[in-house]
């Protein structure tokens, strides 16, 4: 009986010696220790032995089972480290399984950047409707009916008294009607003008701003807009304020920055003037205070309007505004 077990032991070790792969070791292991394995069968047959031999045989067989199990495991581990050392591994240069992010629209990106700058300066964000009454879009903003100032904004009409807003300024009036000073808001949103060429699309985006409080001066307007330009472009960007006209501000100013393409030497982008017009601004016209019931003696303020497409074109070097609304994936994927 014992001989038999010794035989099994020796034979197993011999076979293990000859094994050349983990696979073979596993096969040997199954042959001896598996459900139908040699040792398993031996244990099952113990009942056929004489009763006095059974305990010893069972003990010895179980011991052998442990020993072999250990031996197989060690051999297997040894092979594993050897295999790893000899194996080539994978071609890590093959592309990974694709995970691609989509792109935000460049207008959204610039819009967020503009809003972020003004939020940081303490302005709240307000939004308004896009189909507006003539009153809020024009009259309350001091554009009388039948006044040439209305020609400054080519308007889409829904009816005689309803328009697609030509600027986000109507929300200035709506906000002031609801809120007493101080008012510090910016108004991002879509606006519409019937105009279409290389630099105009019938829909575009604006961020307007309004600040009304006691003792607000034109110097403050210059301060806030200078900070904006420096954050949006860079600290070195020079800017100039020049007189202009908007019905809802007085004094009014256009803000030009030194051309970021040619640094003022003159190029195609700046029409060889060295300057780029980037926003309109001015001190709030007293007529607006009257329309919303503010005390024009006590409060002063300023307003400004930024064209988001204009800034995006400059920042990204885009030369045709219509690109923004063609939604060509080859364009959008770049942002």
């Amino acid at each position, binding site marked *: 009986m014992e001989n038999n077990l010794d035989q099994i032991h020796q034979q197993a070790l011999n076979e293990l010696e000859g094994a050349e792969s983990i696979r073979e070791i596993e096969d040997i292991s199954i042959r001896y220790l598996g459900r139908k394995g040699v040792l398993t069968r031996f244990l099952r047959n113990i009942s056929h032995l004489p009763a006095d031999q059974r305990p010893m045989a069972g003990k010895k067989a179980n011991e052998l089972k442990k020993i072999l199990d250990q031996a197989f495991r060690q051999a297997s581990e040894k092979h594993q480290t050897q295999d790893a050392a000899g194996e080539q591994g994978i071609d890590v240069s093959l592309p990974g399984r694709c995970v691609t992010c989509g792109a935000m629209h460049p207008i959204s990106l610039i819009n967020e950047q503009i809003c972020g700058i003004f939020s940081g300066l303490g302005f709240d964000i307000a939004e308004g409707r896009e189909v507006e009454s003539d009153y809020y879009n024009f009259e309350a903003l001091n554009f009388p009916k039948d006044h040439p100032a209305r020609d400054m904004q080519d308007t889409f009409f829904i009816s005689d008294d309803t328009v697609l807003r030509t600027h986000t300024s109507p929300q200035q009036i709506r906000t002031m009607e609801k809120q007493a000073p101080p008012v510090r808001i910016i108004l991002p949103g879509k606006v519409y003008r019937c105009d279409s060429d290389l630099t105009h699309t019938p829909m575009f985006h604006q961020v307007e701003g309004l600040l009304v409080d006691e003792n607000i001066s034109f110097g403050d307007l210059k301060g806030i807009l200078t900070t904006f330009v420096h954050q949006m472009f860079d600290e070195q960007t020079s800017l100039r304020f020049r007189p202009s006209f908007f019905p809802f501000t007085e004094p009014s100013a256009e803000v030009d920055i030194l051309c970021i393409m040619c640094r003022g030497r003159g190029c195609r982008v700046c029409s060889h003037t060295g300057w780029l017009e980037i926003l309109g601004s001015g*001190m709030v016209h007293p007529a607006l205070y009257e329309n919303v019931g503010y005390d024009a003696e006590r409060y002063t303020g300023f307003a400004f309007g930024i064209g988001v497409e204009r800034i995006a074109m400059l920042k990204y070097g885009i030369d045709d505004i219509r690109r923004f609304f063609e939604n060509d*994936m080859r364009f959008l994927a770049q942002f």
Partner: protein
Amino acid sequence: MKVSLSWLEDYVDIKMDPAQLADALTMAGLEVEAVADRYGYLQSVLVGRIEAVDSHPNADKLKVCRVHIPNGQLTVVCGAPNVKAGMLAPLALAGTVLPDGSVLEKSVIRGQASEAMLCSDVELGLGTDPGGIMELEESLTPGDRLADALGLYDTVFELDLTPNRPDCLSVIGIAREIAAIQKTPLRYPDFSLEDKDNRIGKLASVTIEAPDHCPRYAARLVDAVKVKSSPFWLQDRLLSVGLRPINNIVDITNFVLMETGQPLHAFDFDRLAENRIVVRTARSGEKFFTLDQKERTLDADMLMICDGQKPVAVGGVMGGLNSEIETGTSRVLIESAYFSPVSIRKTSKKLGVSTEASHRFERGVDPEGTIRAVNRAARLTAELAGGTLVEGLIDEYPKPFKPAQVSVSVQRTRQLLGIELDPGHIKNLLESIEFEVDNIIADGDDHRLEVTAPTFRVDISIPEDLMEEVARLAGYNNIPITFPAMPAEARPPSRQLEVRRRLRQLMTGFGFSEVITYSFVHRLSSERLGLAATDPRRSQIPIVNPLAEDQAVMRTSLIPGLLETMRYNLTRQVKTLKIFEVGKIFIPRANQALPQEPEVLAVLWTGMRYEASWHGAQIPCDFFDIKGVAEGLLGALKIGGLRFTRMDDDACDYTRAGYCAWIMAGDSTVGRVGEIHPRIRDNFELKQSAYIFELELPHLIPLIPAAVSFKPIPKFPAIYRDITIIVDRAVEAQSILEAVKNMGETLVETVHLFAVFEGDPVAAGKKSISFRLTYRSGAKTLVDDDVNQLHKLITAKLLQAFNAGLPE
């Protein structure tokens, strides 16, 4: 508005070079858009020496000339009678653009090649002699540029003026600003005209029947004029600002218009019935031929200048054919009026005519400038057209104009502008542009300036108008930069803005790119979308004046925009598209002028599930891809009670029946998901499947939990048990999962579907559904015995409820 440097110099000495001048005007609020060399067109016109003149083989009146230039000789065919060998004349090379707009090219004239052109002074815009080619001084050097040889230098400035500054729609107006900038004097021409008697009163009369439209009407009469070409200096002035000379009478009115900004009109006095002028509004429906030979239909709001019987001009807009100056005209009545800006603007808009005159009248001319202008024009007419001035002036002025008197506080000016200014400084600035400071009154710490605005400054009425002038003249760039007191932080953004930002982030994270399409779409877009006639989205708001047919109505859905974007990209070989848009739709409301403007998120996926790669074959995306995105998005927003319910076939419109669902959160519908209906795809000329989902933000936002509250992580392990049952194919998987949940067993934590199978060995018309139940207790570690009984019970209930079987 164009103005030439040489003309400006008639009124002011200019100390700056053209570039400096342009910059100074721009910084004073008169934006110079372009600065051009007036004689730029003479670049390719040289002084040519005519070496030889031969007769033309095929034409008696033409000559063939050999003209010497530095690089050789050119052959030129010329028909001028004065051409002769040895003379110097202007030679325009091929490519020259002449003042009349024609472009010179090499040509063959009656069989003879002609390489350039010998020019007359008329052709070059340099004179009035049409008789032959221009004879140049012997002393000039052949081959030199003509402009250099003749010393022709001038600069033309093109100004983009804001509508508040009609006073600068004139050469004198701009000269006045330059004088103020330079602090140098302005020279006015002589506008005076002394009348010894009032003979005109016996010959003509003016009656104003519509003083609201025409507050002032002045006129003078010039007798025995000869209508002919203007002298060269006058033509030259007009040419320098881009106006074409016509005849001396018309040229004089145009000259005075450009010089003073006052539009004038010259009538042939003998064609005015009863020799009188009546200013009245038109009769509705009245017809009238304007100077441009078009018949106009008038309405009762339009102001007409009439004679004793009929209209002769549309007041302030355009004259009539019936009183036009003709070659034989002998007596000229010159009109100089002040018309109401609103009246002129309405008429000009209604007739669709904008002229130099209407442009100025609608912005407001100087009501006191009428007399100066008519004097200037009458005197020039007498001088240049050989006429005799009829003594006397007609000046009907039923509504006298009051100059604006404004009082402005010095302190308030300082405060608004943020610059230190004393009363004397402000006074000097205002006086430099002809404002009169009548008084400076001390008022406590403050001073008030009482100011009378010049009558040409029709834009001045309130103190801020004066402050703007002060700021402009002091120089915006001299105002120091300051900062307002600001709060430490802004208020948090609105919920809508916050959610929109989050949607953008999530969708781009899921691999979708944002698009922005126009808010206006094609009139037929909701029809193309297959919306039912009763659908509120069928009533789109039309735009009265759209730019294009495909931008004619406000959108009521974002889907047409996405489908158009898909088509645009497919035709450009981009076949897989994952895009989204967040934007408003516009739904009209009954009895309200302004529509509802809810914001919508719309998402589209077409093409492949993954990009082509070595990892496996490409699989087209399907319903469950887009649904997965919707689930992922709503899950990230922590929206509870999410369900997708089958849409009734008649509600499917643009989505394919059987392949679309409502997205529900609890009882509220927040959107839909599905495949675009093949018929709708055809309407948009699309040849591949597309899957969409849409969410309405107003419905979605209230469902997003404002705050998240933490639930403890389970302390005890779970036990998992699987069930597979076989049900009718029509049974919705969701109903089985919901049935388990509705049993209300507290130990059942989750039900997760993991396999659906149809086909052998499952019987036809049936499907097997497998799902895993997670059992967990909050109080103890469960053992098999705790679960076995319950699991059997749940299985049994399901078998009964769904008439289901177990797999073999």
